[in-house]
């Protein structure tokens, strides 16, 4: 009997199929659409592949050299450095175990670049199960703003090894705060590019060390920092003081 009960998804899919027909027919709509797009099927100009490659290379060189390296190199901890380079409306945040800033004036040798497909999967489980799954300690904040409670724990696997744990907290208003910790025992370098017209990046003090606070236009906030062999991201739409308090309450 229970199986005969319609599920929410079935209701929604049923509702999705119920549409009032459009005022115009399918063909009439097609005519309107093609009147608004350029005709490209005749005398289409094809750019030779080699020319495209050359243009792409020049673009990469221009972009690479144009990134102005500001004085924003900051040591995050003993191992991980963070650099913020800005150019126009773009900002690039780089985390790396290298001591020097990443060079942007020399292109890598493309022949030496290899790409590897990495098998990733994730599993939701209890905090205790997650701890059993990982070779590193999982830490949770001891402070959370009013009514936030742990909603889920997700372990992310890379090549079958548990490398990242995500703790998701939800409050009575269904706001979400997420804490991600990623185990990083080896040298690494990672970058993200943000639009700095819509995003503000600040350096903040976190428990005596430094962290980056990224404020997105939609009110979303990320705090990014590192500890030995571990990278952290705390994010949500809580106010930033509260998020900093949460981050500082993690007792490593």
């Amino acid at each position, binding site marked *: 009997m229970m199986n005969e009960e319609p599920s929410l998804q079935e209701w929604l899919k049923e509702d999705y199929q119920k549409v009032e027909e*459009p005022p115009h027919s399918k063909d009439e709509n097609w005519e309107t659409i093609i009147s608004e797009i350029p005709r490209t099927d005749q005398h289409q100009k094809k750019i030779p592949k080699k020319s495209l490659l050359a243009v792409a290379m020049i673009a990469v060189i221009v972009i690479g050299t144009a990134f102005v390296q500001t004085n924003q190199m900051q040591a995050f901890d003993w191992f991980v450095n963070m650099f913020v380079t800005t150019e126009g409306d773009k900002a690039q945040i780089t985390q790396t175990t290298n001591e020097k800033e990443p060079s942007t004036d020399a292109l890598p040798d493309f022949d030496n670049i290899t790409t590897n497909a990495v098998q990733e999967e994730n599993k939701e489980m209890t905090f205790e199960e997650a701890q059993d799954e990982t070779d590193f300690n999982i830490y949770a904040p001891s402070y959370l703003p009013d009514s936030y409670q742990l909603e889920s724990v997700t372990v992310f696997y890379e090549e079958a090894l548990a490398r990242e744990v995500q703790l998701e907290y939800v409050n009575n208003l*269904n706001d979400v705060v997420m804490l991600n910790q990623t185990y990083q025992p080896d040298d690494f370098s990672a970058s993200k590019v943000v639009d700095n017209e819509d995003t503000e990046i600040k350096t903040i003090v976190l428990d005596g060390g430094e962290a980056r606070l990224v404020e997105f236009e939609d009110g979303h906030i990320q705090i990014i920092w590192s500890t030995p062999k571990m990278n952290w991201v705390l994010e949500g739409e809580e106010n930033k003081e509260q998020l900093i308090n949460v981050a500082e309450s993690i007792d490593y």
Partner: protein
Amino acid sequence: MLKKIFKKSEPTHEEFRLVYDMFYSRVYRDVYFITKDSHLAQDALQETFVKAYKHMHRLEDRERMGAWLSTIATRTAIDVLRKRKGAREVLTEDIMIQERNMKEKGLDTLHIVEANLVKEELLESLKEIKAEYREIILLRYIHDLSIKEIADSLSINESTVKTRLHRARNKMKEKVQRDPKRQWIGGE
């Protein structure tokens, strides 16, 4: 077949017509789900295909064309709503908890009647929900996109997707619980 269609940077009209035929119905249902108005849906349908044509060369995984078109469709429908309807949307919204409660109760006659009412109310409340929430519900529950896929497609954070889903569910739950008809039938 899709791989074959787009060897060049832009499809010809004939090639694009094949895409139109394949996805016309899906795109129209998507934009109607958001706008709940056939005239606005038609406008959004046309704009969606014009945008899709212009940006087709950016699509990396052509096997994902359906999901790609759906995200263009929902964004476009929201824009059309904003432009032509004004902000008259009422926040309403949830679902899963209600569904779970119903399963726990079983299916006696009273509950069948109640289930039908709940269904009507939930679907009715969808029309009043914020368009951004309908968009997430469409992509998640109708097209079965993962949280990550939705976040990537809409260029928003995963936690924003989750927050919208949570809020949508709770608002709908509140609406159903507040409805006087349901209180009378349920005897609570």
